[in-house]
């Protein structure tokens, strides 16, 4: 990691803050009456200009038995409406295991569907984890390519007689990790199938569409539970094709241009870790903070 990075980033931040002017803006994960929040275990179904900074994770005992603390940054920039590129990276501290940065991950993602009356949204993407871009022994020796599909469905189209259920939404993600090389560094690189989903109950949706909430805190809250799973499906070492995953109950506080999420991380079995951890994230929506500059697509502006 370059010692000049903080200075470079500081300069970039100053440039961002200075770059406000007037033109149309583009929304993040909004489809019909539904605003899908950014979630932590899986991605949301939208594509927008946004920054997750930081995402902090603490695991008392990870799958290797090490205590682990991770911090990461993820930035997404829309190139044209509905299409964005993101980059994610961050350091990890493990005891035992030491300190290092993981490999840089990038993703190209396209939001190809929104059916407003059914609050249904879908996006497809390709994520790449770039080999040898990490430090401290936390880097892989082959690229990993992961096609990803994200969908979201709000239940606002239920009949009014089921009003209490209309704030519910589910989002889901499936992906497959395809290593660039079957073998590298003397070990097998397995192909993994990943899947996950979230169940959300949006109190902002309730307040706007079902019944008024007087409490100024609760009207911004989205209780949710995330479920993430992964299983090696090809080229795995004998005895390692075990499904791993987490269950992550928590809540998201959604303000106008940012959100804060806090979730427990509960491993589903001993191969996934031991003991409950915690993950928190502060997330900024640039389409709301800088609607006329960083928060709009580079091409395709009206």
């Amino acid at each position, binding site marked *: 990691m370059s010692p000049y990075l903080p200075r470079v980033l*500081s300069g970039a*931040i100053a440039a*961002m803050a200075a770059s406000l002017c007037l033109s149309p803006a583009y929304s993040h994960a*909004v489809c019909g009456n539904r605003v899908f929040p950014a979630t932590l275990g899986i991605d949301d179904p939208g594509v927008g200009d946004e920054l997750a900074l930081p995402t902090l994770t603490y695991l008392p005992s990870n799958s290797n038995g090490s205590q682990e603390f991770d911090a990461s940054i993820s930035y997404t920039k829309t190139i044209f409406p509905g299409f964005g590129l993101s980059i994610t990276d961050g350091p990890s501290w493990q005891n035992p295991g030491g300190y290092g940065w993981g490999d840089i991950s990038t993703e190209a993602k396209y939001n190809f569907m929104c059916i407003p009356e059914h609050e249904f949204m879908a996006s497809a993407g390709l994520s790449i984890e770039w080999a040898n871009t990490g430090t401290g022994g936390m880097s892989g020796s082959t690229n990993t390519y992961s096609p990803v599909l994200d969908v979201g469905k709000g239940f606002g189209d239920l009949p009014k007689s089921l009003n209490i259920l209309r704030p519910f939404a589910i989002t889901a993600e499936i992906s497959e990790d395809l290593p660039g090389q079957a073998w590298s560094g003397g070990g097998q690189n397995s192909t993994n199938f990943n899947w996950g989903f979230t169940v959300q109950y949006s109190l902002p949706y309730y307040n*706007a*569409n079902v*019944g008024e909430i007087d409490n100024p805190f609760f009207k911004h809250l989205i209780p949710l539970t995330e479920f993430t799973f992964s299983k090696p499906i090809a080229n795995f070492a004998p005895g390692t094709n075990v499904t791993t995953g987490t269950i992550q109950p928590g809540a998201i506080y959604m303000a*106008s241009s940012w959100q804060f999420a806090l979730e427990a991380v509960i491993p589903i079995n001993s191969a996934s870790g031991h003991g409950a951890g915690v993950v928190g994230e502060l997330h900024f929506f640039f389409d709301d903070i800088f609607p006329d500059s960083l928060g709009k697509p580079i091409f395709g502006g009206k």
Partner: protein
Amino acid sequence: MSMRSFLRLGAALTFAFAASAAFAHALLDKATPPVGGAVSSANEIRLKFTEGLEAKFSGIALSGPGGAVPLGAASVDPGDNSVLIAKIGKPLAPGTYTVKWHAVSVDTHHTQGDFDFTVKP
């Protein structure tokens, strides 16, 4: 980058974004008549949003037991551009009514929603 540098950078960025002049999607914060509530009468629909609105591109429609209810043109409260108001053209008979709204915030984000309220006998 050490953990301390990383956290310091995070704190600086957080402060920078929190201090930025932010506009956002206009989400419905409060309504009169209230969302899901019951009233004995109503002569206007008043919607308070989380952001300022462009009245020209925002609107309200009302329907009830007898179909669409005529409303005056939606306008923004002169003293608060986050409040959208539409006068109801005739007294409302008892029953359940549905308000459909669409809003464009001052930074051109589009939002929409609908809710019911009841006029008591």
